[in-house]
C-alpha cells in the first residue's frame, strides 16, 4: 500500500455506559483504507463492526456511547475533533454509510421523497441551494441509478409500502446521492432473501466500480468479501485480530480465530464444515484479561491470559495479533478445528 490513506482509524476505544458499568466494546481498533480501495471487515455479530463504523461517522448514540480514545483521520483530519460545520462537509459527501437493516434505516413516518430530498439538498457543495424542482429531479435520477422502476411514484410512498429489496436500494441511492469518496456498507442485503441479496451486492459492486469509490464492506460471511475486496480485516470482540490482502488471507491465515472462520465456510471441494468455534463471544462488561479470544482459543498459552497481543507484521502486508507469531517469525501454525462432514 502506498500513498496517503483516505481513512485511518488509530487505536479506537469506545465504551457503552449502561446501568451497572461500562461495556468496553472497542478495544483499540486500527483500520486503514486507501482511495478506491475495497476493504472487507469480517466478524461475528456483536464483534463491534457496526460500532466502529458509526464512530467513523460520529453517529454513535451519545451520551450512552463514549469514545474513550483514539483518532479517526479522514484525508488527514481527525473526525473526532471536528466541529459540526466540518462534520457536515464529511458526512454524505466524504463518507456515506448504508445501514444494516433498510427497514430500520428509513424513517417510518416520512415519505421516500421527503427523506431523499433532505439528503439531496445537503449533498451539494456548500453555498448553493437547490430549487424544489432540482431536488426532485436529482432524487429521481438517483433512484434510477439504483435501477428502481417508477421513481416518481416511489417518492410519494412510505417505507412500509415498499418491499425489502426496494428499501435497500433506496438506502443505497441515498448513500450515493452525494458521490462519497468512501462508502461504508453494513451487511448489505443480509435481511433480504438470498437472490435479492445477490442482486443488491452486484448493484453495489457496479456503482462502486464505476465511480472508483472506496468501500468498507462489513459482513459476517467470508464468502461475500472474497470476491469483492482487496483487503480483509478480521474483527473479534472489539479487536482487529488479523488483516491481510484478500488473496493472501484466503491462501493462508494466521490467527486461530480466522482459521476457525475459514473452516466454517462451506467448500464446494468437500471437506465439510466445522462445528463452528465452540463457545461464544465474551461479555463486554468484564472482558477476559489479555487476549479476548483466549477463552475460546484451542492454542491458548500462558501469556495470552495476561497480556494483550498487539497487531504485528507476520509477513509483508499481513498483520496478526497473536502471540503465536513473534516478530519476524513467518512460521505458519495451523490450528486444528474439528471438521465434520455434512452439517
Amino acid at each position: 500500500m502506498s500513498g496517503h490513506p483516505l481513512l485511518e482509524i488509530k487505536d479506537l476505544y469506545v465504551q457503552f455506559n449502561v446501568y451497572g458499568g461500562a461495556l468496553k466494546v472497542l478495544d483499540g481498533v486500527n483500520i486503514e483504507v486507501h482511495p478506491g480501495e475495497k476493504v472487507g471487515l469480517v466478524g461475528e455479530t456483536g464483534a463491534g463492526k457496526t460500532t466502529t463504523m458509526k464512530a467513523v461517522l460520529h453517529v454513535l448514540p451519545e451520551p450512552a456511547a463514549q469514545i474513550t480514545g483514539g483518532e479517526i483521520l479522514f484525508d488527514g483530519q481527525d473526525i473526532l475533533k471536528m466541529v459540526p460545520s466540518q462534520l457536515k462537509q464529511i458526512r454524505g459527501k466524504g463518507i456515506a454509510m448504508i445501514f444494516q437493516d433498510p427497514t430500520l434505516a428509513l424513517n417510518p413516518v416520512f415519505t421516500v421523497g421527503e427523506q431523499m430530498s433532505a439528503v439531496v439538498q445537503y449533498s451539494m457543495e456548500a453555498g448553493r441551494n437547490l430549487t424544489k424542482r432540482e431536488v426532485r429531479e436529482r432524487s429521481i435520477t438517483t433512484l434510477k441509478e439504483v435501477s428502481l422502476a417508477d421513481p416518481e411514484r416511489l417518492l410519494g410512498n412510505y417505507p412500509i409500502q415498499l418491499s425489502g429489496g426496494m428499501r435497500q436500494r433506496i438506502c443505497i441511492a441515498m448513500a450515493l446521492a452525494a458521490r462519497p469518496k468512501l462508502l461504508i456498507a453494513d451487511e448489505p442485503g443480509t435481511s433480504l432473501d438470498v437472490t435479492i441479496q445477490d442482486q443488491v451486492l452486484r448493484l453495489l459492486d457496479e456503482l462502486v466500480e464505476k465511480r472508483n469509490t472506496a468501500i468498507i464492506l462489513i459482513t459476517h460471511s467470508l464468502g461475500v468479501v472474497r470476491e469483492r475486496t482487496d483487503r480483509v480485516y478480521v474483527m473479534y470482540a472489539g479487536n482487529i485480530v488479523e488483516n491481510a490482502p484478500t488473496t493472501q488471507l484466503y491462501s493462508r491465515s494466521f490467527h486461530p480465530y480466522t482459521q476457525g472462520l475459514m473452516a466454517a465456510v462451506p467448500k464446494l471441494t468437500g471437506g465439510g464444515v466445522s462445528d463452528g468455534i465452540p463457545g461464544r463471544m465474551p461479555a463486554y462488561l468484564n472482558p477476559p484479561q489479555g487476549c479476548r479470544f483466549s477463552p475460546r482459543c484451542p492454542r491458548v498459552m500462558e501469556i495470552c491470559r495476561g497480556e494483550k497481543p498487539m497487531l504485528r507484521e507476520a509477513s509483508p502486508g499481513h498483520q496478526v495479533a497473536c502471540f503465536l507469531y513473534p516478530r519476524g517469525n513467518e512460521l505458519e501454525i495451523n490450528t486444528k478445528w474439528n471438521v465434520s462432514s455434512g452439517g
Partner: protein
Amino acid sequence: MRFLYFFVRRFLHSIFVLLGLSVVIYVISRIVPGDPARMAVGYQAPQWVVNNMREYMHLNDTIPVQFFYWLRSALSGDLGISLLTRRPVIDDIRQVFPATLELALYAGLIMAIGGIMLGTLSAHHKDKWVDNVVRVFAYMGIVTPAFVFGIVFTLVFGFWLNWLPTIGRISPDLTSPPVVTGLMTVDSLLAGKPLIFIDAVKHLLMPSIALAMAGLSQGARITRATMSDNLGKDYIAAERALGIPERQVLWKFLLKPSLIPTVSILGLDIAAAIGNAFLLELIFSWPGVSRYGVRAMLAKDLNAISAVVLILGLAFVVVNICVDLVVGILDPRIRLSAQRNE
C-alpha cells in the same frame, strides 16, 4: 380515500360508544332508590299528580321502552327539566358549557405544548441536570391530584403572593363582553376590550395550569421516553450520517415519530382533565358544566346528572376522534394498515 375510510370507521365506532354510554347513563339514573316521579314532583304533591307524572315520564312502560323514549327526546335535544333550576337542562348546559370549554381548551393547549417541550428538552439533555429536574417535576405532576394543585396555587399565588385572582372568570367590577362564542378570551377581543382579555387570561391561568399538570407531566414523560428511544434508532444515525444538519434531524425527523405516542396518550389525559375539571371548577368557583354537575349530584337532580355525563362523554368522544385523526396524519402506518385490514 384511505383516510376517509379510516375516518368513517372511527366515526361509526364513536356513535356506538355514545349509544352504549347512554344505556349506562340510563341505568344509573334508574338505580336510584325511590320513585323518580315522586322525586320530580316533590314530596308534598298529592298522589294523582305523581300518577300523572308517572304516565308523562313513561314509567309504567317496560324498561327498554322507557329507554327508547328517553333516547328519542335526548336526541331531539330534550334532556328534561332540571329539578334544581326548574329550567330545561339543555338551556342550563348551553349556558355553562362555554366556560368549561374555555378552561379545557387552555388546559389542553398547556398540556400539549408544555408536555412536548419539556419532554424534548429532557431527551436532548438526557441524564444532565435539566433532565433530572424535568423528571422529578413530571413525577410530582402525576402523583399530585389536580385539586391539590388548585388549592396550593390558590394559597401561594392567590393569597400569599397576591398575583392572581382566585375565583370566577372575570373580576366582579368588569362587565362581561357580549356573548358571541361564550369564550371570555375570544369575546373580549371581538368586542375590542383588551383589558377584559387580560383579566380573563389572569383568571384562567391557575385553573387551567392546575388542570393541565397531570397531562403535561405524562406528556413530558412519554415524549422523553420515546424521543430518547428514537435517538438510538438507525434512521436517525443514517440521517445524520448522510449529512442532514443536526437541527433538521432533531426538529423534523426525530420529532414527528416521537410525537405519535404522546398524542395518543394525550387523549387519555384529556379524559382525566375533564373529570378533574369537576373539582377545579368548585375550587375556583368557575361557572361551568362541572360545577353545575356537582350541584346536580348533591341534589340528586337526575336529569341534570344524566345530561352532564352525556355532554362530557360526547366532548370526550369528539376529543378522541381528533386525537385519532392527528395520530393518523402523523403516522402513515396507522392510516395504511386501516386500509389493509379491509
